[in-house]
């Protein structure tokens, strides 16, 4: 299955220029998606403990199962205002 990846701020800059979709085994969870991204972009390791993952716009835990077509967002610590 395939999920679309969106990222922001410093994480977006690490992923910049890369395809924004990720092929994953059917039934993969959010944590597996993150691991796949880390393999592709080792610079992400430093952000592992600080990012949150959103599935279709809602924050989820790493064991959340994904579905084909999901939007997976990588959210570093926020800085609005």
């Amino acid at each position, binding site marked *: 299955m395939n999920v679309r990846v969106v990222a*922001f*701020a410093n994480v977006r800059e690490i992923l910049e220029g890369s395809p924004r979709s990720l092929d994953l085994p059917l039934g993969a969870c959010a944590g597996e998606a993150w691991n796949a991204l880390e393999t592709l972009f080792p610079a992400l390791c430093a952000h592992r403990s600080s990012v949150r993952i959103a599935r279709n716009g809602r924050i989820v835990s790493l064991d959340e199962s994904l579905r084909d077509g999901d939007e997976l967002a990588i959210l*570093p610590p926020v*800085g609005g*205002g």
Partner: protein
Amino acid sequence: MDRELFSIVRGPVDPRCLDPLASDAQGGIVTFLGVVRNCSDDGLTVAGLTYEAYEAPALREFETIADEARERFGEVRLSIVHAVGELDVGAVAVAVAAAAEHRSAAFDACRYAIDELKRRAPIWKKERYTRGDSRWKSNE
């Protein structure tokens, strides 16, 4: 009751977008404007800020924050508007307005909204310095 505004705009916020919040039943309106400062917290001279947002979830967060403010502080109307893109020093990055019958609820709701926005809304800020470099700054 539907002149509340939750919005993300490209470029500086025009604070006049908050004007329609006023009504004849609300005696107190408290507004917060967050303005791009010329100096960072660590003392560097700032040329400007660049904001980005995860827009649809950020707007939902604004509405959730407004709902929570109503639960906590009673009948109060809120507008929340945040800028994305490049902002110069002096530009308004965020504007929050709270209108209530009495001023206490308006102050409390406005402060709650900006505190929670900074804590929770999926928005990010990069400081650009006059010396040439730039840095992502979180609120943590």
